[in-house]
């Protein structure tokens, strides 16, 4: 890339989204530090330092993806998708089992979660298929094929088992259909049948997943066991009150009521809500709303169908993570191990989030302009 192209690229980047991304990463690092905090004479864990490293690496991934032409990546979508599926098969075969699930592969001393990359690959492939010139969104076959592409990855992630991650693919597919032009009546029918199929899904769930749902419906059922995190998270969030207890003043994680393993990861929002209160929660949600708006903006101004589908799909995927994570933290949804984008501690997820943002920016930079 020469200098002129560089200046052009920088000028056309969505700076609002870039800055909100940086702000969210900063919030994440600050509260990962707080989640590890045990007092002035007990330095907390070094998670926040690792997260800084991942954020830096993520920034490179972001720039790399934004600079690359999404259309050239899209052309390779089928291979990327198949590679991702191979990764998912591999994790089932040789993956490390942690907390009763095979989700990680150890590579070069780092635990990698193939399902994180598979989500992106799936959105990429599905968007690519739906944007092909001879794909007619009004035909039933189109839905079958695109459903199969998403469904393949979905099933492989479900059997890990990682239902939470897999579930984020469903609204994403639905939004892809919507954006692709599937008739509204068909889309409504799908939502309806989805609701009707819920009892069937219950029967298909593993026992630990059912238990999570039961605990969600009645947390007092097993307060020392499965319901623990839900109750303690609610206490953390609720006791934060309107203004919060102040940075590093939260006690739920320090005293270990919010388990130390989940405080910096899946339950980072509890830590923030306890220390920063309702005002802090509101600020964070506002930040996320602006941030997601950037993705919608990219989709709206995409120069082609594929770009629009890609940006809308990735935005929905990230939105699903934000919504489900916070909703489970505050007791609106069952506990699923879904991280909060840019905030939760975790390398794989930081990189895939940055990759998704980079792809959206690749679309936005190359946007359709009237002038």
């Amino acid at each position, binding site marked *: 890339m020469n200098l002129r192209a560089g200046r052009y690229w920088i000028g056309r980047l969505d700076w609002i989204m870039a800055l909100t991304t940086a702000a969210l990463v900063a919030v994440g690092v600050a509260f990962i530090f707080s989640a590890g905090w045990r007092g002035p004479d007990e330095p907390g864990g070094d998670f926040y330092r690792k997260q800084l490293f991942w954020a830096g690496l993520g920034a490179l991934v972001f720039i790399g993806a934004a600079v690359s032409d999404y259309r050239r990546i899209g052309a390779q979508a089928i291979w990327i998708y198949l590679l991702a599926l191979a990764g998912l098969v591999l994790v089932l075969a040789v993956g490390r089992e942690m907390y009763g699930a095979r989700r990680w592969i150890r590579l070069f001393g780092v635990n990698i979660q193939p399902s994180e990359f598979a989500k992106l690959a799936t959105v990429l492939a599905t968007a690519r298929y739906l944007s092909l010139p001879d794909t007619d969104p009004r035909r039933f076959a189109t839905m079958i094929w695109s459903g199969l592409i998403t469904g393949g990855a979905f099933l492989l992630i479900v059997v890990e088992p990682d239902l939470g991650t897999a579930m984020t693919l469903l609204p994403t597919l639905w939004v892809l259909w919507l954006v692709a032009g599937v008739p509204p009546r068909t889309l409504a029918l799908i939502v309806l049948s989805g609701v009707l199929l819920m009892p069937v899904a219950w029967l298909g769930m593993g026992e630990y997943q059912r238990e999570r749902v039961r605990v969600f419906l009645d947390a007092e059922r097993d307060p020392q066991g499965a319901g623990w995190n839900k109750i303690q998270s609610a206490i953390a969030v*609720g006791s934060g009150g*309107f203004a919060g207890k102040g940075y590093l003043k939260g*006690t739920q994680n320090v*005293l270990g009521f919010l388990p130390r393993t989940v405080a910096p990861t899946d339950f980072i929002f509890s830590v923030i809500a306890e220390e920063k209160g309702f005002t802090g*929660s509101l600020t964070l949600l506002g930040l996320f*709303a602006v941030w*997601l708006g950037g993705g919608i903006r990219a989709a709206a101004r995409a120069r082609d169908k594929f770009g629009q589908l890609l940006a809308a799909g990735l935005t929905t995927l990230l939105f699903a993570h934000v*919504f489900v994570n916070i*909703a489970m933290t*505050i007791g609106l949804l069952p506990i699923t191990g879904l991280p909060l984008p840019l905030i939760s501690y975790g390398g794989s997820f930081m990189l895939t989030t940055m990759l998704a943002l980079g792809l959206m920016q690749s679309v936005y930079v190359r946007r359709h302009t009237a002038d």
Partner: protein
Amino acid sequence: MSARLARDWELNRLRLLYAAMLAAFALLIAQLWRLQVAQGARYERNLARQSIRRVRLPGPRGAMLDRNGQPLAENRPSFSVTLYLGELRLSKPRRVSLADHVLQVVRRLSERLELPSELTERDIRRHIQQQLPLPLTAWRDLSEESLARVAERLAGEPGVDLDVSAVRVYPQAGLACHALGYVGRAEPAEDAEAFHFQLPEWTGRAGLEKVYDSALRGSAGGQLLRVDVAGFRRDVLDEQPVRPGYDLRLALDTDVQRLAERALDGVQGACVVLDPNTGDVLALASAPGYDLNAFVPAIPRALWQTLMDDPARPLLHRAVAGVYPPGSTFKPVTALAALQSGEFTARQEISCPGYFLLGRARFGCWQTQGHGTVDMLRGIRYSCNVIFFRAGLACGHEAIADMARRAGLGAPTGIDLDQDSAGLIPDDAWKRAAQREGWRDGDTCNMAIGQGAVLATPLQMAMLAATLAAEGTVRRPRLVTGLRAPAAAVFQDIPPVIVRRLDVAPEHLRLVREGMRDVVMAEDGTGRKLRVPGVTLAGKTGTAEYGAKGSGLKRGWMIAFGPYEAPRYAVAMVVEEAVSGGSTVAPRLQQLMQGLFPAAPAPGGRG
């Protein structure tokens, strides 16, 4: 559909999508409002309930000092090795339970400190289950030698600390044990429910420890602890300091008390020394006694059982709770009643043949060959029964009872002690109630010489001696003369209390006092064995039979005061198994008097 419309729908779809996302966020915000604002207080309470613990800390008990400031009950520092489990947990290897780890630490320390372990595995487990946030005491009350070893070898050991606490100690061991009383573990305080943990607290179970418990007992402080999820103490949020109790200044004089107890050496009985000018109890001795320190921190069950089963009844406070027929020591009361009534005069002489006939009943004088012609003055000196039968019958039993009650007999003395016994001054109503028959002259005869149903405690008889010494002023005996607030320098004085005046003409009182002086000072006085060179003493002996008639079991009594001219001491002493007051009690009391009047040179081995 035109191209423009299609384009609009495309854009509107995305706007719809964004609106749906914002709507979902609105749902989250609604729930956050509910949790953090609407129900925030509730969750804050939940938070406090699971992570805040209240601990009640007892205040240290006040001290008891004798009238010269010598400590009789106080606190001494007791050093204990305590384990902080929250810190020990950090060095705990995985897969080892906390209890096992603590047990290992205790064993290791045990070797290093050369102290046998006092903790069992059960103690440790119970502590972990019930009192996790509190430190666990591994060795309590270290000896000085162990303390030095601990200080030397325990420095820097994580989770192990040296704690100091206050332990009750009685520096004089068994001295005045009945008066001082002892403490026991308190029942949980009334506001106990507000606390999660209570450290053991002590409450007075007997004697002054019990009567002045509310003053002695400090006010409890508290600690607000924050505990972590496992229940370990994390930090102290707030602390309310404990306040120590009041110190008591006692009327007791350690030296006098020791003399009194020595005088009782080897017998069962009691001895009371009062200051007739104030009512101060200088000594309050009951024999046998016990070592108060055996009750700290708790009396061993076996020892308690031994004390309870002992036929000598060491736990009985004979000086205030022991009731005995006063025998002839009661005669001054009869004398005063008769003289004051005018029915018997000081000049009246009677003849004592050694007995007195009341109808067919024969009432003997202790001197079977008789005292010959006696008047009241000599009657007291010889303790002649016959003159008192006559005097008593002359004034009537009501006059005697009235005089006795005014002298403080037949009712609790009002001393600041529990078990303050009333004794018994019988009358018509009492006899009807107890024996279903009316008063007879025979009863009057018995009463006149302090026998029959008359009962008195040693303290009451000492009070009588004090009243006679103080020219008829009846003072309430008292043990505590002052209270000192915690951290205050001086004691707040408690003024002495005058109960009443005896209301007897001075000449009658003088006669009785002179008679009592002769008891000791005259060559033929019954209490001559009391004599101490250099000081004029007055007294009255008494011997009362008890048990089956003719069993030969006798209580020996003596009351006394001195110096005769300006009395400083009034004394009563009883010995439960005596030959007579004059031969058994007087020599013992003489020992005491010799101690009280040390200026007088020792009487060369003859009494």
